């Protein structure tokens, strides 16, 4: 073992050199020379949100809301189908898990059933059995009464597609905010994790992310409610006006400042406006291509201007051309934003929404309109915000702990091993540098528990040196020559150390896969630390010992 071929020596020293090179940028910023790192194309470790400050939000699709959306859409489809077939019906209503409708004449069923069967919405069942279609609804008919029930498997598939769609929408919204380096990704089967570093105003972002932003342009119904609790006629929907909602909300907020929105029941209690829901009288916000915040040229109040794509422009043009002189409603998330009268046909495919906005609101509304509507409401499942000042404190605490830990362990190992302890201390420092180098190279995120992992690694890294030295010492005391004791020491210890470290790696891998942010950070440093430890103990320390043995030919071991 005392003879190392040149290539092996170079390989070991080269690895150490690369480790130092990759770790170096982490020291540049405190030294104020981080330009150098950029020139070399090297990056320091990525800091977790708990260290640099920021928000970590876990959102999930609101099942109740998605169910409602699905039901509403189906009811619209049923209505359209039956009208197309010119078939009378009654009792079109939501059930607890679907929609039901009754034909006026049961004998129409034969004609209607194949048409209604087209509404079952086959969906790709996704990850589990790709390519296999499952229906979102099942349909049963009894004497002219149809019952659509949501299928659990179909609903799951719907959740999946909704989630993917929501992720795209959220990406657009976050990018619209101009925050860099935010990460949005699916987590687990039904959640979205959003990480936004260095966030100043988390509440604004949460509102921006959570609002559904469903925008429609709908003609007003012929009749408008005459009494407070009047039911809208068929083909009409009732929505409150923005002014009323704002006024009520303001009054409520005065009494209780924590209120942030009105509940659905509260909204229903307000004076309502009836708008047409039939297909031809509405244009959907999904056909928007652009939305920008701006100001009304006359009143100088904030507004949002928007542009339709070709399909939307055609539809909007036709709608406005056929209804000059009539009012229409701009409905956003179930509230009538405004109800201007159509003065002239709007053929250019652009328009504006005005009134009742602050500048920040128009900014955010433009972003949400541009990015499209969410398939359903998103709710926050978990949220962690760390202010930048706390992050800085954590970094400082972590660095102090690491330095203190390093000094403690280094002194501690010098006491029993003397000269050999110096080699161990050197290996320990190289180990730390390599660990930082690997973390930087692969872009692993350093979290506060990650720092704990590093400090713990310092303690446990010494173990392999202790095992080797104790073994050498034992062999020496049992009468072996110095050379043979060292040799046996290394070979015998290697087996023990590998066996022992595999168990720690098992723990690290499980920790990682259990993985939520901070814990994962710990698992990474622990795992990487084991690998660098094996390298420094059995490549580096061994190389140094081999060199020492060849150079000084020791006759005794001072351990």
């Amino acid at each position, binding site marked *: 073992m005392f003879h190392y071929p040149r290539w092996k020596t170079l390989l070991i020293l080269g690895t150490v050199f690369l480790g130092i090179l990759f770790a170096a940028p982490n020291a540049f910023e405190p030294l104020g020379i981080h330009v150098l790192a950029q020139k070399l194309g090297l990056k320091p470790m990525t800091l977790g949100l708990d260290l640099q400050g920021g928000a970590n939000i876990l959102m999930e699709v609101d099942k109740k809301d998605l169910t409602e959306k699905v039901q509403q859409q189906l009811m619209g489809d049923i209505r359209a189908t039956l009208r197309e077939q010119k078939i009378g019906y009654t009792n079109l209503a939501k059930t607890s898990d679907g929609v039901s409708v009754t034909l006026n004449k049961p004998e129409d069923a034969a004609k209607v059933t194949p048409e209604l069967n087209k509404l079952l919405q086959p969906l790709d069942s996704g990850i589990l059995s790709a390519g296999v279609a499952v229906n979102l609804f099942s349909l049963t008919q009894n004497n002219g009464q149809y019952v659509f029930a949501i299928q659990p498997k179909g609903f799951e598939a719907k959740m999946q597609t909704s989630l993917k769609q929501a992720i795209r929408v959220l990406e657009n919204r976050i990018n619209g905010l101009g925050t860099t380096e935010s990460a949005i990704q699916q987590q687990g089967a039904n959640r979205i994790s959003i990480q936004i570093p260095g966030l100043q105003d988390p509440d604004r972002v949460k509102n921006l992310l959570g609002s559904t932003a469903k925008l429609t342009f709908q003609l007003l119904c012929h009749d408008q409610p005459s009494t407070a609790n009047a039911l809208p006629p068929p083909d009409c929907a009732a929505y409150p006006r923005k002014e009323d909602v704002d006024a009520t909300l303001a009054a409520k907020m005065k009494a209780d400042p924590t209120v942030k929105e009105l509940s659905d029941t509260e909204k229903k209690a307000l004076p309502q406006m009836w708008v047409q829901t039939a297909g031809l009288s509405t244009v959907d916000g999904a056909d928007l291509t652009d939305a920008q915040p701006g100001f009304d040229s006359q009143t100088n109040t904030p507004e949002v201007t928007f542009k339709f794509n070709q399909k939307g422009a055609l539809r909007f043009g036709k709608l406005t051309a056929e209804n000059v002189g009539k009012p229409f409603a701009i409905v956003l998330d179930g509230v009538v934003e405004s109800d201007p009268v159509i003065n002239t046909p709007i053929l250019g495919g652009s328009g504006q929404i005005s009134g009742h906005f602050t500048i920040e609101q128009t900014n955010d509304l433009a972003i949400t309109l541009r990015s499209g509507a969410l398939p359903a409401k998103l709710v926050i499942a978990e949220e962690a915000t760390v202010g930048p000042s706390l992050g800085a404190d954590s970094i400082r605490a972590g660095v102090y702990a690491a330095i203190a*830990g390093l000094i403690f362990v280094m002194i501690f190992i010098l006491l029993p091993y003397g000269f050999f302890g110096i080699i161990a201390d050197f290996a320990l420092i190289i180990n730390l540098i390599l660990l930082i180098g690997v973390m930087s190279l692969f872009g692993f995120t350093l979290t506060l528990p990650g720092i704990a992992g590093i400090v713990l690694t310092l303690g*446990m890294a010494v173990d392999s040196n*202790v095992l080797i030295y104790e073994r050498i010492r034992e062999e020496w005391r049992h009468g072996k020559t110095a050379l043979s004791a060292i040799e046996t020491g290394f070979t015998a210890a290697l087996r023990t150390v590998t066996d022992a470290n595999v168990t720690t790696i*098992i*723990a690290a891998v499980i920790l990682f896969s*259990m993985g939520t942010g901070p814990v994962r950070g710990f698992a990474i440093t622990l795992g990487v630390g084991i690998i660098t430890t094996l390298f420094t103990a059995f490549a580096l320390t061994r190389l140094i010992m081999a060199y020492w043995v060849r150079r000084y030919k020791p006759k005794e071991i001072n351990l």
Partner: protein
Amino acid sequence: MRWKPIRLIPDDTKYPFMRLSRFGFFLSGILCTLSIALFIFKGLNYGIDFKGGTEIQVRGTQTVQMDDLRKKLDSIGLGKVELQQMGTGNDVLIKVAAQAGDAEGQISQKKIMEALGPSFEKRAANTVGGSVSAEYTQNATGAVMLSILFVLVFLSFRFEWQFALGAVLSLLHDVTLSLGLFSLIGLEFNLSVVAAILTIIGYSLNDTVVVFDRIREYLRRYKAMGLADLIDFSINSVLPRTILTSMATLMALLALFFFGGEVIRGFTSAMIWGVFVGTYSSIFIAAPVLIMLGTKREVSATQAKASKGR
């Protein structure tokens, strides 16, 4: 450089560990029973990771008068508000359970900040919803189970089933005692503590494997020695290493405990306890179990050779 190294541990110790292990079993039995009783009757002080709720860390402009703060926060209708002073005394950690109708914790956060007034700065906030916390509980339990299972498989493969069983028993012992300690002193039990417990499992195993490795080697070398003597001899041989490593790890952990800040103190406390328990259990639980299970020497010798040849 010539200095005489200082030996912290005497050489050639001959402690009769296996004879002492009877007391060890007795002691561990009592402690484990106590731990389980504590766990059942007192339970753990679960953090919001596991029970859901909202946690806010605030900093006041001066040392916070906790009684005033408590009075202020008890009257805002968020139920029982837990307060904990941190660091220099300007920082306070405020915890409330999940509120009906506010699964997202936004209202709780607002209410608290408003009750505190402008002299407090929100430094960090953390909300965990019910669905996530249930999942975390499941994941954490699953992770501990899974790691124990993997260890069982790995050790049966590398050693023999008696060794694997001994190691797993000592692991269960460590986990039980860790839970017992957390229940006893009521320290918050959160995800990082679970991480600590998994690390304890890793550490304790590390220690156990070193002892087992030596036993396996001596089983092969000293064919005539009685099993109990042989195990004593093995443990005594690796004793300097066991103590040095535990102390080095403790050094690092103490540095973390004193300098690493409040956030990871729960983790560090668990680990410090784990180092003691893990070291103790590899000597007094894992090794004696080998005798109780009647490890067969011949098989073990061939097995060891086979695995060495691999």
